[in-house]
């Protein structure tokens, strides 16, 4: 083939092909056969050839390629020709319409071959310009995304950092462009590197995060509520880690045990049993705060039954601390429904207590169950203290997903252990540490106090985590599984915060400090001699998240998750 190059503008493949077509002898013997594969190969070659910009190399290669391709076209007995086309006409169309299908997807190329004829006029201009950029099509990612769509379908609650927001707006702005070029595949190739994220953000709205909306928090009433709730005796319960499977409730013993721990010495049986209950995860159905001794004993008996079976969910009840028994029991009631029959007794009590919260409860399931277990155990006793607790904390709710479970307990135990008002400073420090330690998935937002039923603050945070969990599981999860995950998460966080508190006390302090966090992470194996705490912070907490966390840390422990 004689290719006469004019040393003007860079000899693109297009020009080369044109020349080839003009100069080459028409090879007639197999004219009627359309050369789909040949066209494919040609198309495949052109991108590769275009990529190398050096002229000499390109020309030589193109020459060989085009020669080879044309030869192939002539030679090939391609099957199934689409129309009455010669290779020549095909090439012409190809040149004119600039199919920029990717190497990766030959089917797209096939589709492209017949269509150029139809659209060639419209595309002529755009095609020229978009010849330059050759990127693989985005179809593979888009096919993946629907698969992931199902699990990620939920999530109105995930929030978006400003950074992510920016990404999304950028993606959305690119969308119209894509729609305009929908007919041609060129648009998909005009992408910047940011583009690949768009299908994800569009197809997985669950990942989208809303900006946090902060509302006014009534700190005064909140602290008031904390102080108002009385100390209650809690029949201690076993931890799952207890080595003795059938141990008795350590009502008498555990106080002494905790008394001897390196904590500020508690005074009085009640105070001692307070930390004991806190420690034991499951202080009855969270009736610790407001129940007098008698219902506590009643519960203690039931707790004994539960102990042997090591049911975990009473632990959730112990979270709420001052904020009242209700949210606990409502929360616990929720889980009680789904959980095993082993804990019937405790469950009944909790449901009975949940009656109180039924007025404000949002879970209809709880209602039905409560109605069943209405008259059973200690319901009368449950009602009275419940009523009092209801009045006591009308507003301020501890709601931070990871802070609230810990801080009320923390506060309560602090109050139990040390009469002086240590809570505010200690808990103020605690939020700053916890976000630092945990991956900042949720910036907790303040809520309007009194606008929501009580159990929501605690459940909402864990709910969020559980949903994240199910998202990463990439397969649908049963509701029971989700609740179980919530339970485990709750226990985990409780344990975590208790450890932090104990570490602080161990160092003779009343405030959790970064040292305690470092110790905790070290025990967990995340911080080692090779990896320091700051490395972890840098790795997992980008600046955007830190900016979200800082207002939370300085809020004085008054943070609430949105609903």
């Amino acid at each position, binding site marked *: 083939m004689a290719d006469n190059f004019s040393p003007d503008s860079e000899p693109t493949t297009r020009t080369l092909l044109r020349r080839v077509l003009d100069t080459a002898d028409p090879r007639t013997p197999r004219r009627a056969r359309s050369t789909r594969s040949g066209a494919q190969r040609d198309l495949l070659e052109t991108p590769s050839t275009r990529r190398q910009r050096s002229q000499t190399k390109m020309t030589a290669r193109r020459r060989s390629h085009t020669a080879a391709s044309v030869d192939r076209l002539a030679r090939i007995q391609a099957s199934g020709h689409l129309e009455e086309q010669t290779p020549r006409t095909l090439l012409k169309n190809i040149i004119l319409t600039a199919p920029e299908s990717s190497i990766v997807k030959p089917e797209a190329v096939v589709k492209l071959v017949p269509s150029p004829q139809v659209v060639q006029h419209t595309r002529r201009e755009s095609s020229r310009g978009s010849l330059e950029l050759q990127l693989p099509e985005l179809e593979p990612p888009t096919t993946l995304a629907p698969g992931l769509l199902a699990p990620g379908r939920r999530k109105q609650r995930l929030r978006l950092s400003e950074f992510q927001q920016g990404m999304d707006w950028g993606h959305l702005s690119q969308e119209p462009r894509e729609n305009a070029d929908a007919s041609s595949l060129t648009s998909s190739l005009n992408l910047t590197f940011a583009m690949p994220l768009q299908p994800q953000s569009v197809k997985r709205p669950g990942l989208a995060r809303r900006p946090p909306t902060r509302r006014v928090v009534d700190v005064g009433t909140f602290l008031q509520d904390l102080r108002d709730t009385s100390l209650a005796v809690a029949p201690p319960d076993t931890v799952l*880690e207890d*080595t003795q499977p059938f141990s008795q409730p350590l009502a008498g013993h555990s106080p002494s045990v905790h008394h001897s721990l390196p904590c500020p010495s508690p005074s009085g049986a009640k105070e001692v049993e307070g930390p004991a209950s806190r420690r034991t995860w499951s202080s009855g159905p969270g009736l610790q705060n407001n129940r007098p001794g008698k219902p506590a004993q009643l519960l203690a008996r039931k707790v004994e039954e539960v102990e042997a079976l090591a049911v975990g969910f009473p632990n959730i009840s112990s979270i709420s601390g001052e904020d009242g028994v209700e949210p606990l029991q409502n929360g616990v009631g929720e889980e009680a429904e789904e959980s095993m029959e082993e804990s019937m007794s405790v469950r009944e009590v909790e449901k009975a207590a949940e009656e109180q919260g039924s007025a404000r409860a949002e879970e209809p399931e709880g209602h039905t169950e409560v109605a069943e277990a209405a008259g059973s155990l200690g319901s009368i006793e449950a009602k009275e203290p419940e009523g009092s607790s209801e009045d006591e904390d009308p507003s301020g709710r501890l709601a931070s997903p990871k802070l609230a479970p810990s801080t009320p307990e923390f506060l309560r135990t602090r109050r139990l252990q040390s009469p002086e008002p240590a809570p505010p400073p200690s808990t103020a420090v605690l939020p700053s540490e916890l976000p630092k330690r945990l991956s900042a998935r949720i910036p907790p937002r303040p809520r309007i106090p009194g606008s929501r039923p009580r159990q929501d603050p605690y459940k909402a945070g864990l709910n969020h985590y559980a949903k994240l969990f199910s998202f990463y599981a990439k397969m649908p999860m049963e509701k029971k599984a989700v609740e179980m995950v919530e339970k485990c998460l709750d226990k985990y966080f409780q344990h975590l915060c208790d450890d932090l508190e104990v570490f602080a006390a*161990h160092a003779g302090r009343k405030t959790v400090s970064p040292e305690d966090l470092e110790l905790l992470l070290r025990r967990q194996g995340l911080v080692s001699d090779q990896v320091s705490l700051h490395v972890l912070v840098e790795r997992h907490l980008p600046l955007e998240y830190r900016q979200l966390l800082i207002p939370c840390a300085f809020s004085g422990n008054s943070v609430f998750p949105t609903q």
Partner: protein
Amino acid sequence: KEEDVLILLQRLKAAVHYTVGCLCEEVSSDKDMQFSKQTIAAISEVTFGQCENFAKDLEMFARHAKRSTVNTEDVKLLARRSHSLLKYITEKNEDIAQLNLERKAKKKKKLEDENRNSVELAEAGVEESEN
């Protein structure tokens, strides 16, 4: 040096294994239930690993409290997870503390008695001398 360390480790592991074997024998004779060798080996391995962890944790706790010596407080912190163990340890701790107190009290008494005796003797001696 490395070889020595390895040899030492092996000896320690063997010692732990032997102790675990003895304990398992006791338990099996008590409960009339046999222990397979793999079980004993597994238990001893786990025990050894846990001992390593305990040691590291104890050291961390002591350092956290800005001490250079591991204290009973550190041990209690370590055992806080298990209620019964914690109870046991604290009871033992209290017993030991009591013993110490008693010993101190005894020593004090002895000293006082000796002092008194010497004083009495001196006085007696003086009296005798006077007389």
